[in-house]
């Protein structure tokens, strides 16, 4: 692991407010917060609405990692049960609920893939609010865009980020598999993520 003395990356200074949001997404975001508030009050209907909105996405992410439908469903069920039991774990300010669920789904699936206890607390997953996925239209639009961006990435970047994200390999494991230096793997992953961000904001 390396430390940079100043870490002057431009994204550090970027606020989530920099990303324009449509009125629809703002409305949908408020709706997510409202649903969470209702879930906090044990409103089963609100929980079902969250489930209906994001379950396919969560399941698809878990399935992509695990490649096993029953296990993927187990992950999905546990995540939504967690939302039900402890909705405060996703508090306002952690970003969009959809993005948070997508990352948590990936992390939970990787934990299961590695047959290890969850090493990451959901409390650590914090996202900027720029990726609002509450609206079906906006979610599909972002999905289409990000797939195009990922597909257009250099093959090495694409491969590195997929190995890290969907297969849960460490940078050392990726380096060993690809034969590339460790630093190169890190750079490729970092570059791929930056390209995705830039592609979405374009």
């Amino acid at each position, binding site marked *: 692991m390396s430390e940079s003395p100043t870490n002057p990356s431009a994204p550090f200074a970027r606020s989530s407010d920099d990303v324009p949001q449509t009125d629809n997404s703002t409305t949908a975001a408020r709706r997510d917060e409202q649903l969470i508030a209702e879930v906090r009050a044990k409103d089963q209907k609100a929980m*079902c609405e969250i489930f209906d909105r994001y379950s396919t996405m969560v399941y698809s992410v878990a399935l992509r990692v695990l490649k096993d439908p029953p296990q993927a469903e187990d992950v999905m069920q546990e995540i939504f049960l967690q939302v039900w039991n402890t909705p405060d774990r996703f508090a306002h300010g952690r970003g969009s609920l959809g993005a948070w669920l997508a990352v948590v789904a990936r992390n939970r699936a990787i934990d299961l893939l590695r047959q290890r206890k969850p090493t990451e607390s959901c409390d650590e997953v914090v996202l900027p609010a720029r990726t609002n996925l509450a609206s079906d239209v906006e979610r599909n639009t972002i999905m289409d865009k990000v797939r195009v961006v990922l597909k257009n990435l250099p093959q090495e970047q694409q491969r590195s980020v997929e190995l890290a994200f969907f297969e*849960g390999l460490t940078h050392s494991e990726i380096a060993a598999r690809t034969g590339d230096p460790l630093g190169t793997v890190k750079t490729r992953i970092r570059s791929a993520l930056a390209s995705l961000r830039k592609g979405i904001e374009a």
Partner: protein
Amino acid sequence: MTAPRHISPEDLALHAMQALSPEESAAVRSHLAECTQCRDELASITGDLALVALTAEQEPLPAGARDRFIARLPVAVVSAAKSESSQVVSIATKRPNSASVWIPWLAVAALLVLSASLGFKVQRLQANLQSASEASAQQIAATARARQVLDVLSAPAAQHVLLTAAKTAPQPSGRAVYLADKGSLIFQGNNLAQLPEGKTYELWVIPANGSAPIPAGLFRPDATGNASVVLPSLPLGVPAKAFGVTIENAGGSTTPTAPIILAGAPPASGE
């Protein structure tokens, strides 16, 4: 002072993907706990990872997944049950209030129905009473008429006259029973000839005082030649010198038209 040493974006990305060793992750966590700047960067990278997650092809949920999830909400079920229970209690507690609101209206409605029913009964009783009154009046009238007939027939002062045809047999005949004081007359005819269409028999009272004959009723015989005139409208107190029957046009006449078919006069002594 030395510049703070931040976590590189590369390592933050690996940390976000849990791709660091436990020791490395512990060091990152330690730094993040004190560095807002790195926490913000980690949030941005995590947002980027969410984008990567969205590249996964969307697969439909396994059949029944939603139901299985809902079934795993015991708290929700209990909560919902409690909620429903409380709602039931709430509704139950509200029912008296609701009933108390409705009772007066129900009472009014019941009274209206009762009133309408009573009104209908009263109306029906009035109709029945009116019908009974009319029937009673008819019976009274019928009784009075019968008594009048009986009085005519049984009155000692009644004149009994047999009217016969003078020439042919069987002879047409008629019997008149007349009570002058009451203007009551009963006539019975026998063996009367049938009349052509448009013709009628007419009975006449010939006053004793010589005044013009008084029409005493129209009649046509039945198939056997019998006919009757019962209590025609006659003036009171007109003693009769004679009675006669003529054939007149339908609708009758004010004066008798010859020939006189039947004629009779009471005996001078009143027989």
